[in-house]
């Protein structure tokens, strides 16, 4: 049997020849790709969350007292800034009405 005859015999084996276009196969592959993408993202988020929790678990016992002390010291400033912020937002929304009274901001 020459090489060409063997080649022809192998190429004529219809059982091994899938169709040139197979949309079902492509859809099945893309479904598996989507599933893999979802699992990759899930693994990424879970490991990220676990890392953050681990870091917080180590750091927070040291940071929590500092935050509490800092919070006590900053309380008056926080109150003043909150009131100033609320006044600023109020004035911003009152601008059209103030314009009627000749006050332009």
């Amino acid at each position, binding site marked *: *049997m*020459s*090489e060409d*005859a*063997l*080649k022809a*015999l*192998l*190429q004529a*084996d219809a*059982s*091994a*020849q*899938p*169709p*040139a*276009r*197979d*949309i079902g*196969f*492509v859809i*099945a*592959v*893309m479904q*598996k*790709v989507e599933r*893999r993408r979802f699992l*990759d993202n899930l693994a990424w988020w879970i490991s990220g969350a676990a890392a953050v929790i681990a870091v917080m678990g180590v750091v927070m016992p040291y940071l929590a007292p500092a935050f509490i002390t800092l919070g006590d010291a900053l309380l008056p400033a926080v109150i003043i800034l909150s009131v100033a912020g609320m006044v600023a937002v109020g004035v911003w929304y009152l601008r059209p009405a103030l314009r009627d009274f000749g006050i332009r901001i």
Partner: protein
Amino acid sequence: MENLSHAALIRRACSGSDEAFSRLVSDSQQAVRAFVRRLAVTADDADDLTQEAFVTAWSRIDRLREGISFRTFVCGIAYRKALNDRRRFNRQVTRETQWHALTPQTASSTVDSRLSVQAALAQLPLDQRATVSLCLAGDYSHSEAAEILGLPLGTVKSHIAKAREKLTALLGVRS
């Protein structure tokens, strides 16, 4: 998207385009499936394995080197998966053989002079079957086959020569 070359589709797929990747799958599925069907036991197993190979190709497409075609890249992945499947299958067969050792088995007939092509291919070792599937049954060059199988070019040529000799004998056709 319709008229883009494979190189452009690969670039788009690398930057995350699912549409480009599905076009690559659609264009290369026939060649890859035909190759894997000659390696696997059943067509269904082969298609499952091919789908897994495409998914792996999707996750590693950034590793596709310039000058290597997409189908060559996927065939390489599919071949390594087929090798792993074969090892698992062999281990399972060994266990089952030990289990049935006491049961008298009917001896399977020796190779018939007119075996089907698939049955003849199944008689070859996997690496020889793979080279034949690529270079004789498929239209891959020897160097592409070497790239896919991770073998030196000389080994590929030697596999083809040995496989051709065995297939000629198994198919029972005189030269």
